[in-house]
């Protein structure tokens, strides 16, 4: 047994997710998202909990977690910033956006600020090529970015 448990509201969502599929395994990725939303990252306790509830081996769930880039295998900052750096964004100056973020936050891509507020990452193509450069902050896309806009966004996050 594990020390992890979903909140009652998320427990309802868990049941709803299960009802969509012909077997429990198929719920694995959506349920991992649900757990990460609550816990911030996917710990070994979360993996064990998902395995127990879906009738899977923890090795299977761990295999899934390590395959996909969006599951955090360590604790992350309160906010997550992804700067897209693939070609269309790079042609529009995403390197400048990324360097500016690194300078402003005092960290490199892949790291979290000391106060735990922001994790900065690079992303591969986020389907926003016509409105490049762009960055994703938590669930929100910020497109057609200028350095001034980046400053305003980072101001809000680090306040």
């Amino acid at each position, binding site marked *: 047994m594990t020390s992890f448990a979903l909140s009652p509201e998320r427990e309802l969502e868990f049941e709803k997710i299960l009802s*969509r599929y*012909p*077997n429990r*395994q*198929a*719920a*694995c*990725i*959506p349920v*991992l*998202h649900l757990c990460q939303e609550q816990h911030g990252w996917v710990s070994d306790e979360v993996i064990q909990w998902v395995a127990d509830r*879906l009738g*899977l081996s923890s090795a*299977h769930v761990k*295999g*899934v977690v390590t*395959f*996909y*880039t*969006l*599951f955090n295998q360590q604790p992350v900052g309160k906010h997550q910033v*992804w700067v897209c*750096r*693939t*070609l*269309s964004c*790079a*042609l*529009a*100056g*995403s*390197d*400048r956006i990324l360097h500016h973020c690194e300078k402003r936050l005092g960290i490199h891509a892949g790291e979290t600020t000391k106060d735990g507020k922001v994790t900065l990452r690079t*992303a*591969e*193509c*986020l*389907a*926003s*090529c*016509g*409105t*490049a450069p762009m960055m*994703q902050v938590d*669930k*929100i*896309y910020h497109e057609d970015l200028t350095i001034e806009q980046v400053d305003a966004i980072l101001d809000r996050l680090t306040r």
Partner: protein
Amino acid sequence: MLRQTKYLSKHYDVQDGHRLSVYERDGGYQQAKRALQMDRQALVDDMKAANIRGRGGAGFAMGVKWSFMPWPPKPDRPHYLVINADEGEPGTFKDRTLMEKAPHLVIEGCIIGCFGIGAHAAYIYVRDELHLSKERLWGAIEEARAKGYLGKKPFGIDYPVEVYVHTGAGAYICGEETSLLNSLEGKRGEPRLKPPFPAQYGAFGMPTTVNNLETIAAVPIALEMGGDAFSKLSDLHNIKDGGCRLYGVSGHVNKPGVFEACVGLTLRELVYDLGGGVKHGELLGVIPGGSSCPIIRPDDVVDAPDPKSPLHPWHGKSALDVPMGVDTYRALGTMLGTCCAIVLSDKVDPILAFHNLMRFYRHESCGQCTPCREGSAWIFRILDRMVAGQATLEELDRLHEIADNIMGNTICAFGEGTAMPALGFLRKFRKEMEQSIRTKGKSSTGVLAP
């Protein structure tokens, strides 16, 4: 010939265009209601006549794919419709506009698609990052369900249909259909060997059709118009590439964006008429349909003296003037892909562009097959050295060799998707690369974003 259309994007600029009330005001869901009362074979035949070539990149004929499903469905072998909205091919941003601005068109397409292939459930696989898209699709499903258009008896007709949104978790490879199916089943998104094909053994081991999201969105439009009339919208109707589609253009153009037009637009029209022309200088090259498609240079001339070649009508003309079609582009030595072009101006260092894309493929290779996993990393490492001015001419030849050894030696098409654009850059920019190596990188502009 440039003929812009407004079928898929009908409600893109309309207030509340994503809501059921607006969609229904213009006749929405009438085709789904009609389809559920049609003879199944007649529906499939009409869709075959529409010549909708898959909009996800491979360009397979949708109606033909539907007809591969075993018929009649066996009670213990339920069929599934799976919609691929894992939009992640660099340069591609068209499906997202449909999900955000026309979700009901997608849901209506799913209802018709389910009936066409004998399924009662459709899963729309959306990449997790597209939060607004997921929200809009779920919203549309809720609205349609509340009206009784989904559920046990859609429109009061005894043919249950459910539509669900399923999310990925960040993996480009899940856009490959069998990898997507594994991901849908709650597994690592590693591609499966084919055969068996999804029509026999797909989602949950059951007969499955996987269609791209834009492909399924074209279905209600084609059905309303009649398959043949829809196909004839296209300049390439005679080579079975029909209808209208979404085009995207990004990179160094004055007006990047998604545009709808008939099939058969030329790259010149996309870049100069719709995209507003090249900015930051003259045109260096265009990656026509997502990053896996080999780059085209403006001085590429069509060489097709054989009257039997689909390219013969354009023999001696610029490659930019060939209509963008699945077969015309294949004959040109590139691919139509997703029809979303990336434009590079002559201020761009092509080696840096090549380096950027190969970093992407190295990052996204799922690691299952050795030629792709190792090959994509080797290519990237050599390019890293080239960018730093440390590569040798011998390594330039090695790039060819590595790419050649990926081709045809992997389970899925990701391997070709890496090797083909690599070979494209190597062929089209050989001189620039040789010069860069000789001058230890000094001949390169070192610029991606002027």
